[in-house]
Structure formats: C-alpha cells, structure tokens
C-alpha cells in the first residue's frame, strides 16, 4: 500500500471516486464514475479521448525475481487448463502461459498477423491448399522431452475432435486425415480450400500445441514460459518459471492468476492496495475514473460491438432497409458516450488493425437519407425488437443508444434484455438464428486475420454466422477468392472488394471498434497492451517488476 497525496478532508469528488472504486457491480457504478468526472489529470468532462498508450514502460534493465499477480473476474468451477476447452479470459490467461502456439498473434503491422512460435516458417504451395510447417529446434516440454513433429501432428488432428472448441473453424479448412509428418521437424498440413493466411489461424487459443498422446490436463505439460504448480478452479493458479524456455527464462519466478474476483471495482481496489499487479480487460468507465491513480494501457484492436441484422429475414432482406439502418446511426456518439473514448467509430468492416482491413472505408451518418430509404421500402414506421444483454460492458448501452437514434428516423426498436446466462443459448430466441432478426453482439478476441474472422462468421458455412451472410448464391465468391490469394498486393485488392460489399450490403452495423484497456500497478514493466490483445495477449515472458 503506497503513500498517496491527498487534499485536506473528504471532498465530494474523493468520496464519489472512492465510491466508484468500492461500490461493486451495481448499476450505479458507471454513474458514480461519471459523476466523479474528471480525474486529477484531465480537466474536462465527457468528450476528451484518452490517449493510446501501451501502459508500462519496456525500457530499462529487467529485474529478476518476483511474482506477477494477475487479477481476473471469476468463471467459477468452469475454469480449466484444457487447451481444447479454453473459452474465457481466465482460461486463456493460463493456457497462454503454460503452452505455446505454432505462431503467435502479433500486434498490428506484422505481415500475416503472426510471428513465429513453435513453427519458424510455413510454406504454402502455389494455391495455398497445402502447407509445410517447419518446427523450431531445441524446444523441450516441461517434463524434459523434446518437441517433435509427432506432437504437432497430434495437436492438429486434435483440432478436429468433438472435444475441441476449435473444431468448427479448423474443420472448415483442414483435411485432418492427411496431416502427416514429413521429417522430425516438418509437418505437412493439407487444406480443403486455399487459405493464404493459414498461419494466423494456428494462433487461436484452442490451437496451442499439446504433447502427443495427451488425454488429461490435470497436471498439464506444455512448452510455455511457465510450468504448472497448482490450480483451484474459480480461485487461483500458481505457475513457476520455466528455466529451459526456448525464448529464455522469464524474469518472474512465479505467475499467480487470481480469478477469485466477483466484479471489476474489486480488481482495481486490489491494484491500489497492492494485492495484484495487473487487471486486464477493465470496463471503460472504471478505467477513466482511475486513470490518475494507476497505469492504464489503451490499444486499438479488432474487437468490436455491433448491431447485427439477419439479412435473410424481413425487413432486412430488403437492401434499402439495411442501408437505412446503417445510415441512421451517429457512431461518434457511441465512442463518446458508451465507451468513454476508449474506442473508434466502426465502418461495418470487421477487423480493425488487422492486415488488409479497409481503413479507408468510412461509414456515413445521414438520417435524412435513411428516412427516405425506409419510405421507399414501405417501412416508414417500423417497429421491431432489439435483443441485447450485459455480457460485456457497453452491449446494453449500445442497444439503448441505437434505439434512441433509430427513433429519429421513425424506427421503434424495443429493447429486450436477456440475461448473460442465456444470451448464447440455442433455445429460442437462439443465437445466430432467424429468431433474432436484430441483436447486439460483441467480439472481444478474433483470430488475427480477416481470413480468420470471415471463416468464423461471414460465410455460408460459418459456425457463428450472426448476420446470415453467404446464403444467397454467389455472395461468398469474392471471399473465397481473397482467402486463397497468396500475392499480398492482389490479396489487398481482393479483400478490399470483399469489405466494400460488406459495408454496402452486409448485416453488421459496427457501432465501435473497442480498444483493449488494461490496468497495471506502477511496478510492472515490460508487459504492454497491444492490438494483439489484453496484456499483449497474455504474454508475460518478457515482463518484470521494478
């Protein structure tokens, strides 16, 4: 608990600021934070944009030793160390430390969106339908065995098993039967279609490399920078540094992932009191209220929140209605009011900061045109349901703000709020089905390429086809073409065409591309918030405590 400057007495702002940190997960918390308004640093209220900032410094001589303590909101007994079933932040944070992928998710600007991990290179054939992976030398598992091609073949085949959450995406492109090892350090991976950005797909959390023959993750053995120590689901885990890590032993002696927190203000309190060192994924309002008291990392990323229209359901099957719905929203208002400036306006093209993303396409705000389009389509006073849920901060608020803006053009969007426990259920109204013509959805982490996201959500066979895209004949042709294009210049053009089509006709109305926002204590060094994800996608190997 460090020393703190304070004014004399308990001013209203201090009481409310203290309240904002202490007043738990009640609806009042964002309101209190807003009332607390300006922190000691920034003077104005409301529309100031917080600067992009990687957070802690990375310059300086690393200090060896110490324990990094990460604080996360709990996922109860459903937390797991099983790479194949990792599905939430606590899972990702742990499996990313115990295991390594073939290729790591890279911050924006890296060609291909990834950099080498356990694979040093990936060679495609002419049409990207078959890849040869070259594996790194000198990598050992935590139990001392060396990494071999057999491990990689086993891992890739496991992506196709029903036990793996990777199965829907992986099985849409990989020909599992014919995955084979060519030599001790090379593996051939044939695909069912050409995918030029295949390495980016291998960086997905559920695809991290596991040992040949793994059946049980009770005491997991990986190649990662930290070794398994102990794990209590829903409470915490302790891992120790791997002295033989192929990138060099981490500076930390140990990593403690504390997932006992039930809400976000407690996590920030814990940073202030010195009980944890970092809290990834902080709600925007709390980050703003605390930016004077702790280090806040803020990075643009591909994550987004969108109002999704099912384009094969009335009234959205009429293109004019879709266009009207896209024109009626003022996206800057979302960035300012819902996300407190920790976001950028969306342009209905998913994949901000990723390679080939069309940053030049801008969304237009034209409510008059929206009105006339609706009138031409015969829907002057449309009334429909907008589904939303407080799964992540900003989803319900986005729905409410969208509905109020829609009112101005004659559209009555009645908000229907479901509980987070049932928002992704298959029961009616089922997620990604026609039972939800209009709903709010979010993506926090994506496979780090346009190929990855479109394979997941924007083609006729996509497992998460929220907008019913690709069901009309020929709608996917441009996409499959771009997917297989190996020449970067041509790929850029093809992906641009794909995105122009999405912007004009697609079902995604991205209200904002949401930044990654993390909180750190002032002692943390060498860990940053980047477009690859919170805490640089949970990369702790290069960090240290000052």
């Amino acid at each position, binding site marked *: *608990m460090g*020393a*703190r400057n*304070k004014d004399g007495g*308990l001013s209203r702002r*201090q*009481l409310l*600021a*203290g*309240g904002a*940190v*202490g*007043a*738990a*997960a*009640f609806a009042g918390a964002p309101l209190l934070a807003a009332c607390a308004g300006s922190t000691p640093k920034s003077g104005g209220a409301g529309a100031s944009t917080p600067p992009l900032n990687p957070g802690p410094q990375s310059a300086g001589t690393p200090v060896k030793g110490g324990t990094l303590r990460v604080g996360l909101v*709990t996922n*109860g*007994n*459903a*937390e*797991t160390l*099983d790479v194949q*079933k990792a*599905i*939430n932040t606590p899972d990702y944070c742990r499996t990313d430390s115990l295991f390594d992928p073939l290729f790591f998710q890279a911050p924006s600007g890296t060609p291909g969106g990834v950099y080498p991990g356990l694979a040093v290179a990936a060679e495609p054939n002419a049409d990207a339908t078959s890849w040869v992976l070259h594996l790194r030398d000198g990598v050992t598992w935590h139990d001392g065995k060396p990494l071999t091609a057999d491990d990689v073949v086993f891992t890739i085949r496991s992506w196709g098993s*029903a*036990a793996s*959450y990777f199965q*829907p995406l992986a099985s849409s492109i990989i020909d599992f039967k014919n995955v084979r090892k060519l030599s001790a350090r090379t593996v051939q991976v044939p695909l069912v279609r050409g995918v030029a950005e295949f390495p980016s797909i291998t960086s997905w959390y559920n695809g991290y490399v596991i040992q040949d023959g793994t059946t049980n*993750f*009770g005491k997991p053995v990986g190649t990662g920078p930290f070794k398994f120590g*102990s794990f*209590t*689901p*829903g*409470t*915490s885990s302790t891992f120790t540094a791997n002295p033989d890590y192929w990138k060099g032993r981490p500076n930390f002696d140990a990593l*403690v992932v*504390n997932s*006992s*927190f*039930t*809400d976000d203000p*407690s996590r920030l*309190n*814990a940073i*202030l*009191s010195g*009980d944890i060192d970092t809290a990834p994924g902080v709600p925007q309002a709390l980050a703003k209220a605390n930016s004077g008291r702790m280090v806040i990392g803020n990075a643009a990323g591909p994550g987004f929140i969108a109002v999704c229209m099912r384009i094969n359901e009335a009234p959205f099957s009429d293109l004019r209605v879709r266009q009207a719905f896209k024109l009626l929203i003022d996206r800057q208002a979302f960035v300012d009011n819902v996300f407190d400036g920790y976001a950028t306006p969306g342009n209905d093209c998913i994949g901000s900061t990723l390679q080939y993303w069309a940053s030049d396409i801008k969304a237009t705000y034209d409510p008059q045109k929206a009105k006339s389009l609706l009138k031409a389509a015969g829907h002057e006073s449309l009334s429909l349901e907008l589904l939303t849920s407080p799964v992540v901060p900003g989803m319900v608020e986005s729905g409410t703000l969208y509905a109020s803006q829609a009112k101005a053009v004659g559209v009555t969007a009645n908000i229907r709020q479901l*509980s987070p*426990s*049932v928002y*992704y*259920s*298959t*029961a009616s109204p089922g*997620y990604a089905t026609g039972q939800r013509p209009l709903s709010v959805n979010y993506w926090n982490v994506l496979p780090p390429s346009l190929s990855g996201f479109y394979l997941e959500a924007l083609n006729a066979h996509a*497992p*998460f086809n929220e907008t019913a895209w690709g069901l009309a004949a020929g709608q996917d042709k441009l996409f499959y073409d771009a997917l297989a294009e190996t020449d970067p210049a041509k790929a850029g053009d093809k992906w641009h065409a794909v995105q122009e089509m999405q912007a004009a006709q697609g079902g995604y109305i991205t209200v904002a591309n949401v930044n990654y926002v993390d909180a750190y204590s002032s002692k943390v060094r060498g860990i940053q918030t980047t477009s690859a994800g919170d805490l640089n996608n949970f990369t702790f190997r290069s960090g240290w405590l000052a």
Partner: protein
Amino acid sequence: MGEEDARRAVAAAPAPALAAAAANPGAGLSGDRPRRAFGDLAGRRPVLAFLLRRVGAGLGTLLVVSLLLYVAVQVLPGDVAQIVLGRTATPERVAALRASLHLNQPLPARYLAWLTGMLTGHLGDSTAALAQGNTVPVWQAIHGPLGNSLVLAGITMVIFIPVCVVLGTLAALRAGRAADHVISLSALSVSALPEFLVGTLLIVVFFTELNLLSPIASISPGQTPFSDPAHLVLPVLTLLGISTAFGTRLLRASVAESLREDFVAMARLNGLSESRVIWRYALRNALGPSIQVIAQMIQYLVGGIIITESVFNYPGIGTALVQAVLVRDPQEVSVIAAILAAFYIGINILADLAVVLVVPRLRTRL
C-alpha cells in the same frame, strides 16, 4: 336432587385442571391430555420430547426444501451445458454434453440419486467442472468458503452479543433520555443504510483516506482467514454495523418491556440493588426474545452476506452459491443450499431449545 347432583358433578370435575387444560393442552391430568407424538415421554421429559418433535419436523422441512431447490435449478432459464459452452453451443454439442453429464435422465431419478448421495455423505462433483473435463468434488470446492463464512460469522457474533446487550440495556434503562435517543437514532440510521454503502464508506475512510486497511479480503488457496487478520477488520465492521443496529433496537424493546413488569417494581420496592434488579430480573426475562435475535443474526451471517462478501471479495459460502447459480450447476447449488438449509433449521431448533431451557415456564406448556 338436581342441585345435589350438580354440586357433586362440579366437585368431581377438577376445576383448575379444566382451566389448565383449556389453556395448555398437554399439561394437567393424564385423562385429559390429548394424544400427541411421544405422548408418555412428554409427560416425564417434556424438553426431550419437544426436541425430538422439532428435530423430526426439521428433517421433514429439510426434505421438502431440498426437493424444491433441486427443481428450482431446473426451472431457471439456461442450463449448465449451454452456459459452459457459451458461444460455441450448437444443438448437437449441447445434447452431447448433457448426455455425458447425465442431465437428460428423468428428474425424479436424478433427485433420488442425489438424495441418496447426500445421505451417504457423497456430495458429488461439480457439474460445471465436469462439463469442462475437470473433476472437482463439491466438498473440496465449498469447505473452504464454508469455513471462511463461519469464521466471519463467529468473530462478528462474539462482538455482536455483548455490544447489543450493553447498548440495548443502556438505551432501555435511560428510555426517553439523551443516551437512549443517541443510541436508538444511530441504530436506526445505520440499519437503514444498505450493506454495500456501509462497506463502501468504510473503504473510503480506512483505505482511500487513511490508508490503514486493505479494501480486499480475499484468501489464497492454502491460507486461512487468520493468515492476515487485518483483512478481516473491514468486513467485520460492516457486518457489525448492520447487525448491531438491528439487534440493539430489538433488545432495547424487550428489556424495556421487561422493566415494566410487576416483578421488577416489586424487586425494587423490596430494596434490591439496581444492578441486581437489572441482571436477575429484567435481563433474564428479556432473554427469550434476545436468543431469537441472536439466532436470526447467526443465520443471516452464515449464508446471507453475499453483498458484503462481494464488496470485499471475501470468499464465503454466499459467493460460492451465487457463482454456482450463475452457471446453473445443479449438483453444487443443491448441495450448498441443502447445507445452508440444514444449518438454518438447526439454528432454529437450538434457539427454540435454548428459549425453552431458559424460560422454565415454557417446559410445562409444550
């Protein structure tokens, strides 16, 4: 003849017994006592019979409660398979997972299996963990939080009882005067504040301003609540704030009422010292309601303090139950709820027993 017969009839019918029998069924002559459970025992050992009756009723209540709770988890929208799979849920995946978790068996069969397990001490494994491929025995998951809650409740009660007795008696003795007003008014205002507000104000004062105490009371695995006792101060203060406010007002009322009784006036007139009057007469007769107040507080403290646990991130049984409900884990919810229900019922029985023991008059009125 009529008059003499009437007189003999009246003489033959014992009048006090009639009156007593009217007022207290079960007491009085054996000929008039209605049949009830443990009838003979009730005559010789009324307290034991009372206890056995209450325990029997308690077990019955527990059975009904366990059934209701088991059904309630099923009725809630969403189920554990859907929630664990989250976005990756498809009808096929959900069906496969439900089958592997045995969730598609008929409800009566599952309830009976669960009940048998509980009665034989097999508390089972967490369903949510099984859905993710882990085996986490429920007892392993909850014995820590249960112990943590008991520690917090214990510490609070140890302070709560004397504070309430002292403040309540003081307020009753000085009824209508300054001390009473101060005590009653502060008790009223604190009890009107919601828990999280009291907790938050304490954090603002002791952490944000004075930087004396930690706002987080979490406990790492392997540690006990006593590993860092300073962490317990704020949660205990929060709980004390709410409970002493409530308890003081109740105790004040019962002591004040007891002070108005004839025997207190009689004792004073007989020249007994004031402290003797208070201790032996007023307080002893206010014990009945006091025990009920204490019992109610214990019940609340063990299972109902989820909000305080949330504000301070204290890993108690309330938090464990809420997390289990959020993920709709049928095994864990049912086990925790059954344990808490057993605890509540047990406290009720003990409190009633204590009242009966402390108030001798009640023993013959059972």
